[in-house]
């Protein structure tokens, strides 16, 4: 299939929390080529595309950009940032700076986003659930899921479960299945339980600098209390931030997303995979596992380890994969975005999956089951397509239902 496959660009250094006033200097090397705007899946509905916004800010026209719809329409798919010939930080620098400026003005904010930020401040998760209930999902896992403060010894693997996999019912099912897979592989692991808090990717990219700093301080302190060889993490957004941003702020950990962790154990996993999937499979590269960290091969290797699997690709795959439209806190801005855009990116993506005629849309990001399952219904593909996390497909093949 003739899709564009440029080189993976490694994470670029740069100011993590620029103020809007720093943008003209940081974007001095912008050549106004427009690759960002042309690559942006939201560009056509932005009042000012990223290229134009950068130029206006360089010219001192801050207020026009800050009060436009542009700040809240970036979904942080990172296509622009990966392709930018001047290596500028667009979703990681320009947009958080714009959003911080909107917040600093004290204008009314979208209520779902405000609630998510307030909840994260109070409870360490955007859903507003009690931190004490963070490990409640483990009670019905069917296998032991030890809490690290209770095991009182070093463990091989600390599993940072993250917010959606801990609290959202659809994702809790997936977490239970991963626990069973880890158990079947004999992995010595533990979770943080009530001590775990949001890693803070959403808050950072939403421009809530103080909240991100608060979460980082706390997380580095908690992670520093325990002895483990590596961190296994279920959410790609948190994975990317813990892998690439925390070290620059004083927290260096050996961290792996589950696709990487399980792909490393493929030899051990393969003999346990018995059942053939019920239909052909197409895989959605999430932005954080794909463009942001370059894990294109491990998820595909895991899927291909399942006996009899027929893996087909969507028209936009790997580097050019289309975002689900939920990154950088826009998962809380669905209504705001829908009022301005013609369609939702998740709906467009599901149409691409349906066009492959695969019956299973495989994902590896906790945002996707609910986003794509909604999109499957909205686009009328309920008879044709089911959404399954790679963990679910592995567990099913292993007979760990």
């Amino acid at each position, binding site marked *: 299939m003739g899709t564009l496959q440029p080189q993976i660009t490694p994470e670029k250094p740069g100011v993590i929390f620029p103020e809007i006033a720093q943008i003209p200097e940081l974007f001095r090397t912008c050549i106004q080529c427009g690759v960002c705007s042309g690559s942006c899946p939201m560009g056509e509905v932005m009042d000012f595309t990223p290229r134009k916004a950068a130029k206006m800010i360089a010219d001192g026209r801050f207020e026009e950009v800050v009060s436009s719809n542009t700040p809240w329409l970036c979904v942080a798919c990172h296509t622009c940032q990966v392709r930018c010939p001047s290596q500028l930080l667009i979703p990681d620098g320009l947009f958080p700076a714009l959003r911080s400026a909107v917040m600093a003005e*004290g204008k*009314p*904010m979208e209520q779902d986003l405000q609630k998510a930020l307030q909840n994260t401040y109070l409870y360490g998760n955007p859903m507003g659930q009690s931190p004490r209930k963070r490990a409640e999902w483990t009670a019905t896992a069917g296998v032991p899921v030890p809490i690290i403060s209770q095991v009182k010894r070093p463990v091989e693997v600390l599993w940072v479960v993250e917010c959606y996999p801990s609290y959202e019912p659809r994702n809790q099912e997936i977490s239970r299945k991963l626990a069973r897979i880890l158990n079947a592989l004999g992995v010595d692991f533990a979770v943080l339980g009530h001590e775990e808090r949001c890693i803070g990717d959403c808050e950072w990219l939403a421009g809530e*600098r103080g909240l991100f700093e608060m979460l980082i301080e706390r997380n580095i302190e908690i992670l520093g209390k325990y002895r483990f060889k590596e961190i296994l993490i279920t959410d790609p957004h948190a994975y990317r931030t813990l892998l690439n941003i925390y070290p620059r702020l004083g927290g260096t950990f050996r961290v792996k997303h589950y696709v990487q962790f399980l792909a490393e154990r493929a030899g051990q996993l393969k003999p346990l995979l018995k059942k053939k999937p019920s239909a052909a499979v197409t895989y959605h590269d999430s932005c954080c596992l794909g463009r942001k960290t370059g894990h294109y091969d491990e998820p595909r290797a895991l899927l291909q380890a399942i006996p009899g699997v027929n893996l087909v690709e969507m028209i936009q795959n790997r580097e050019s994969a289309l975002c689900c439209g939920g990154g950088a806190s826009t998962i809380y801005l669905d209504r705001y975005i829908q009022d301005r855009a013609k369609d939702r990116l998740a709906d467009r993506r599901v149409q691409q999956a349906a066009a492959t005629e695969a019956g299973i849309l495989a994902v590896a990001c906790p945002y996707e089951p609910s986003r794509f399952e909604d999109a499957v219904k909205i686009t009328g593909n309920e008879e044709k397509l089911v959404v399954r996390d790679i963990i679910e497909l592995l567990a099913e093949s292993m007979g760990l239902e």
Partner: protein
Amino acid sequence: MNIAVLAKQVPDLVEGVEIDASGKAVDPTSIRYILSEPDDHALEEALLLKERSQARVEVFSLETGEAREALFTALAKGADRAVTVQTGQESVPDSHTTAKLFASVLHASAFDLIFTGVRAIDDLDGSLGGLLAGYLGLPYVGLVRKVETSSDGGTVVVEKEYPGGYAAELEVRLPAVLGVQAAEQPPRYVPVSRLRQVMKAAKVEEETATAEGVEPLAVGRMYKPEEGKGATMLSGGPDEVARQIADILSERHLLR
């Protein structure tokens, strides 16, 4: 125009609430406190008035629970002064006592408007606004959702909700106490970095209050809602449950 906003700390239900060993009060070690939501709306309405008509906004909280953070948040949002009211009380006082305590502090001050949330989740003996207005001898309007100043400055026009989806505009002589149901817009967001700055730079003042002559509420027994005995739980798949519901309705002659 000078506005006082009374900000109350209430138990955060997200964290769950336990009854203490006496069976008459909430166990203070089981809870954390947050700002009562209607009080957050009262503050927002006061700040909107400040923006529209250069009012001065002062926020008062009883020194119970974790009031200081809510007061710093109010300062970060734009309040001009924040005060913790020292009461000498060990537990959270009831509404009558609270009204008397606030009356003793606000009595001597020249406030044109006193805003409270119209209710709090732990009001046991009536809502604060009406009781306070009684002690201060001022008019009270509850269920307020909008406040406009008038040109002469001696009155305000408030929009008050009534049952059945009705609302009325009332002209209220100042000074007055208003119980706010909801502000005209949702309470504003304070970025955490702004809150942290204010916590370093600003200060929360203290005042002392007394509540003589109030007979406190005596709680006989406090308990969680008890599970009813009459419920029948249906189980099975959707079709089976639907069949059972149809059978039950038909047994009771509710189906034709």
